[in-house]
C-alpha cells in the first residue's frame, strides 16, 4: 500500500516552448519551398537559355556554312542561285522550327533545304514548307535603304568600275553584299539572327 508508482517520464514541457515544433516546421517548409522554387526557376531558366543558345548556334553555323558556300561559288554564281526569285532565296534550315508567321513565299518558288544545297544535292524546292531563312543580295550600288546602309552602301564599288553608280551589277559583279535572315521558334519563344557578309572573288 505504501508503494507508489514512480512517475512516468514525461517530455519536458514549459509554457515558453509551447508551439515551437510548429514554428520550426513552418520555417523549414518555407525555406525548403523557397529553395525548391529557386531550383525550379533556375533550372527552367537554364534550359531556356541553353535552348536559345543552341538555336542561335545552329543559325550562326548555318549562316557561316552558307557564306562559305557562296565564297566558293563566287559573286556571279551566288547571284544566279540566291538572288530574288532564284531557288536559294528562301531556305529551310533543319533543326530550327520556323516561326508561325513568316514572309510569304511567292507562289511556285518554294523553299530549299540548306543541307541539300550545301552538300551538292540538287535541291527540290518544297512548295508547301514555310521557310526559316531568307537571302537578300544587294545588286544596286545606289541603294540607300537601311539594309544597304549596313554594308556601307552607297559608298561601295561592287563592280570594280571605280564608281558607285551602277544600278545592276549582274554580269560584272566583283563583290556581292549578302544579307541572311534566319528566324525560328522554339518552346521558349522566337529568335532571329541577322548575318551580313561580302562575297568576293
Amino acid at each position, binding site marked *: 500500500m505504501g508503494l507508489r508508482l514512480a*512517475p512516468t*517520464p514525461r*517530455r*519536458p514541457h514549459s509554457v515558453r*516552448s509551447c508551439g*515551437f515544433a510548429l514554428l*520550426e*516546421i513552418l*520555417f*523549414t517548409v518555407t*525555406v*525548403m519551398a*523557397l*529553395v525548391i522554387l*529557386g*531550383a525550379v526557376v*533556375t*533550372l527552367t*531558366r*537554364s534550359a531556356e*537559355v*541553353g535552348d*536559345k*543558345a543552341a538555336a*542561335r*548556334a545552329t543559325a*550562326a553555323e548555318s*549562316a*557561316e556554312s552558307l*557564306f562559305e558556300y557562296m565564297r566558293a561559288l563566287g559573286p556571279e554564281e551566288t547571284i544566279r542561285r540566291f538572288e530574288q526569285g532564284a531557288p536559294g532565296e528562301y531556305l529551310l534550315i533543319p533543326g530550327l522550327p520556323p516561326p508561325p508567321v513568316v514572309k510569304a513565299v511567292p507562289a511556285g518558288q518554294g523553299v530549299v533545304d540548306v543541307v541539300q544545297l550545301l552538300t551538292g544535292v540538287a535541291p527540290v524546292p518544297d512548295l508547301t514548307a514555310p521557310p526559316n531563312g531568307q537571302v537578300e543580295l544587294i545588286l544596286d550600288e545606289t541603294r540607300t535603304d537601311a539594309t544597304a*546602309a*549596313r*554594308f*556601307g552602301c552607297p*559608298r*561601295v*564599288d561592287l563592280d*570594280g*568600275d*571605280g*564608281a558607285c553608280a551602277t544600278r545592276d551589277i549582274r554580269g560584272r559583279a*566583283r*563583290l556581292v553584299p549578302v544579307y541572311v535572315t534566319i528566324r525560328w521558334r522554339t518552346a521558349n519563344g522566337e529568335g532571329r*539572327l*541577322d*548575318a*551580313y*557578309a*561580302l*562575297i*568576293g*572573288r
Partner: protein
Amino acid sequence: MRTRSSAASPRPRVRAERGNVLILALAVGIVVALVLSGILSMTLQHGGAAIERGERAQARWGAEAGFAKAREAIYRKRIVGLSRLLEGPDGMPGTADDGIVPDHQLPFGGGEVRIRIENDAAPGETAFEDRNFRVVVRATGKAGLSEESIRAYVSVPDAFRSRHGVLAGHDLEISGTMDVTGSVADVHANGNVTIAGAVEVWGDVTATGTVTAGAGNVRGTTTSGAPPVKIPILDVEAYREVADDVLRLDGRVQNATGAIVGNGLLGSSFYGWSFDLVGLRWTFSGRRAMNGTFFAETDAYVSGSGSDATREGQWYLSLVARGNIVVSSNPDIRADSPGILLISNKDVRISGSPNLGTRIDWDDLPATPGLVYAMEQFYIEGRTTKINGTVIGATSRNLSLLVTRNHLAGTAQLGYEGDVIFSDGTAKAVDVLYWERTSEHLR
C-alpha cells in the same frame, strides 16, 4: 537528491535539440542555393557566350568582308603596281592616308570594318615602294564587343620579272653604236638576232634561231638555237580602268571617276595633249605637262619635253596606248606607275634624245626603271636616247606598219638591272599566300 537530479537531467538535452531541423533545413537551403547560383552563373555565362559567339561570327564576317574589299583594291592596281596603294589616295608617302584603300572604314552589319595595306618589306623595297606585287592586308571587323582581324599576304599571280634587257618575240636587229649595259643586259629573240656595227652588249645574246654577232662586241656568250622565252601578252585594255586620265577616241579627256575633264579638239589642249581628228591620234607638245598614268584610245605621239611638269624637270608619265606610241623629242620621263613607261598595243618608235626611267649614273636622281612594251614591234634609235629598263616587242603580229621589225639603232643607250616586274593583267583574282586570324573580345 540523486532521484531528483536524475529526473532533471533530460531537460537541457531537449533544449539543445530545439531548432535543429530548422538549422538543418537552412544548411540544406544554403547548399542548394550555392549549387543553384552556380548553375545560374553557368547558365548566364552560357547565354553570354552564345551572344559573344554571335558577335564574334559577325565580326569575323566583317573582317572577311574587309579582306574581300582589300583584295579587290589590290586587283584593281594589279597592272600599275601596288605602290599606289601603299602611298594612299594622296599619292604621297609618309602621310596619314598611307596604306588606306577607298572606303577603308565602313559600317558593316551593325559594326564596322577597317582595312589597311602595308608593304611586305621584301629586300630592295621600302615601306612605300612595292616591286614584287606582294603586300600585307590587315582587315578588322568589329561587332558589339568583339573584334576579329585577318592578316594576310596577298600577291598578284601573274607578276612577271623580265630577265632580259631586250626581249623580242620575233627577229631582232641591233645596229649603230648602241649600248646595252647593266647587270641584266641580256638580249633574246624568239627568232634571229643580227648585230651590225659597233654595238656593245654587256650580257648574253641568245636566239631560238641564229645569232649573227658581226662586228658587235658581246661581252657575254652568244647562243643560237636557245629555247624560246615566254613573253607575257599584256591585256592593254585593263590599263584603261586604272588610268588617271583617258585620252578618248572622241577627242575628250576622261578622268578616273569617268568625268570629262578636258578636250583636245579644234585647237584646245589638255595639259599639252591635243587631238588630231584627221589622223585620229593624240599628240603631246610643249613643256607644260600633267603627271599621271594616261591611256590613249588611239595612237599617242610625244613631241614635247614636258619639262614644266615638276621642278626637277622630270615628267612622271606612264603612257599606255591602244594604238602606236611615238616619242620623237627630248622628254625626261619617269614612270608614274611604278615599272611602266610606255605600253603600246601596236608599235613603239622612239627617236630624238629622250631619257626614259632616269638612271642614277645618268643624273643625280633615283632610278625609276620601267617597261617599254610593244605588242607588235619596236624601233629605237636617236642620238642620245637613254632607256632604263627592259624593252619588249612581244609578237610578230603586224597590224600596224609603223614598225615592221624589232630594231635598236643609233647611239641609244639601254641599261637594265633586272628590277622591272609587271603584271600582264589577265588574272581574274589575286593570290592569298598566307593568312592568319586573331580575335579579341572586350567584355
